[in-house]
Every structure is written in C-alpha cells, then in structure tokens.
C-alpha cells in the first residue's frame, strides 16, 4: 500500500530507534577483541568451553552490542575495522569505486561505514572520506541505470549495489514507471 510509510533509517552516524532498516544494519557483525573478562558468559563464544569469556578473546559481535559495550575511556572491548574499510580496500575504491561488488563486500557498506565512526579509530577521517567519495563515484551510474531500465529484468544492474544504492535504484524505477504511466494517460 502507498500509505505505509515505515520509519526511515537514520542519517550518518545516527540510528532511528524504530527503523527496521537500522535494526537490521546494526545486526552486522564486527571483528572485536575482549579487553576484560566477561564472567558467566562463556556460552556466547561457541568456540570455547569456558564458563567465562576470557580477556583477549577474538570474536565477531553484532554492531549493536559493540556500540553498547564500547567505551572511550575504559577498555572493555576493542573493535577492529572490517576489511572493506581498511587502507588496502580504500586504495581500490580510490582507483575506481565502480568496479567493486558492494553487495558482497557489504551489503551495508555506507551504513556500516558511517557507524564505524563511533569507535574512535585513528583512521576515522580517511574512512569517512572514502565512504563519501565512493558514494559520489557510484551514484551517477545507479541513477542513470534506474532511469533507463524500463520494463526489463534489472537483476544484473542491482546485483553489485549495496542496500542504500538498491533503495535509490528502486526510487528511480518508481519515478520512471510513474512517468511512463502518466505519458500513456494511465
């Protein structure tokens, strides 16, 4: 129905509490390392038999938990950058952002990249720049293809897009289809 207007995702580093998109984005897992013991929670780390999660354990934990546990002053956990935001991949994006399969490398490349800024990495400035420039570099192609693909199979056009780009593509298609209907007097 056209009247269904879900809560949109937050912008930048913000999340909207009731946004289903933001809840699913914050389910993405991040490589982390425990900087203290977590007594009585050993069962959370499936690779271990211990009653506790020891200090120094490497685990993948969801973004929501990483944000909740992370403290600038007291080291409870440390959060590593996922590969796609590290220097190596940033160089690839800088060379030609259009060649990257952001669905496989993401699928929340922009959303997660913005959220990573919460963790005070010394590379925050470079990460932010890279995410922004990548968007700028790819946006034109997404927009053009969404405006030119009428009544055809678009699966090849969207397969390498991240979730944000797919939403933009759908918005473009929706506008295109509405315009075509109007032109035909429908």
């Amino acid at each position, binding site marked *: 129905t056209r009247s269904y*207007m879900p809560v949109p995702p937050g912008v930048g580093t913000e999340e909207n509490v009731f946004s289903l998109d933001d809840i699913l984005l914050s*389910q993405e897992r991040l490589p982390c390392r425990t900087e203290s013991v977590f*007594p009585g929670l050993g069962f959370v780390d499936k690779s271990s038999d211990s009653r506790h999660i020891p200090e120094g354990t490497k685990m993948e934990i969801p973004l929501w938990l990483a944000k*909740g546990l992370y403290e600038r002053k007291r080291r409870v956990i440390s959060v590593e950058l996922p590969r796609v935001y590290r220097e190596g991949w940033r160089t690839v994006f800088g060379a030609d952002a259009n060649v990257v399969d952001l669905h496989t490398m993401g699928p929340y490349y922009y959303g997660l990249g913005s959220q990573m800024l919460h963790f005070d990495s010394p590379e925050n400035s470079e990460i932010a720049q890279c995410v922004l420039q990548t968007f700028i570099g790819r946006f034109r192609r997404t927009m053009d293809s969404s405006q030119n693909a009428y009544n055809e199979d678009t699966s090849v056009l969207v397969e390498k897009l991240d979730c944000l780009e797919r939403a933009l593509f759908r918005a473009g298609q929706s506008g295109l289809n509405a315009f075509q209907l109007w032109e035909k007097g429908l």
Partner: protein
Amino acid sequence: MFCEKAVELVRELHRMSDGQLPAFNEDGIRQVLEEMKALYEQNQSDVNEAKTEGKSELIPSIKFRHCCLLRNQRCITAYLYDRLLRIRALRWEYGSVLPTTIRFHMCAEEVEWFNQYKKSLASYMRSLGGEEGLDITQDMKPPKS
C-alpha cells in the same frame, strides 16, 4: 547469542516491504519477554553480588546483559510500531471497515488502537471544511481529467 528471536520478528516484517500485515506473532513476543526476564534476573543477582562483595569484575557481564535487554526492548517496540503503521495505512486503503482476513491478523489491542485511530481521524476530518467536514481519505488520486 541473545536477541536472535527479537531480530527474527523484525526480519519477518522487513521482508514484507509492500506494507502487508502478517499474523500477530504472539509466541515470538512471549519468547523475547521470557529472555528479557531471564537476563534481568541474572543481572539482578550479579548487581547484588557486585555491591555486597565488591566484585567489580562482574560489571562487564552486567553491561553485556543490559545491552541485550535494550536490544530486545527496541526490537519488540519497533515490531509493534511498524505493525501499527501498516494498520494505519489500511484505514486509508480500505476505509473504516477492514476485510475479515486482515482483522484476523490483528491482536485485540491492535483492533482497539485502530478504533481509536479511526475516531481521531474522523474527529479531525469533521473539523475541516466548514459544517459538513471533509473526507480527506477520498479522491487520493487526482481525477484523470
């Protein structure tokens, strides 16, 4: 890992991006509330131990469980709220009497919320357009001409 059932509720709705209303997942909500109860009780116990015996090493785990409690709260309320947005949309698509098949997917409290919403909307529409009021749910598309 905690909060998996809660996220499953959210995914169930997210899959239906066209605004369809699935059946109310009472069992799912009950399971999440049970998990919250267990997490809270474990935290109560740890908090008491930390206070009375000075065991500050329990604090990271207390924090961990508290994050899980907040996550469960968020998922449940987002699930319920998104369903209300879908139900609200139904008033505009179908009018004030909903098809039986859709009503079966609503819990009693949602039906009550819908009735209150209809009243608020009707009251608002009566306040528009002079004495007769104005039905703004009609003619939502401009006429062909």
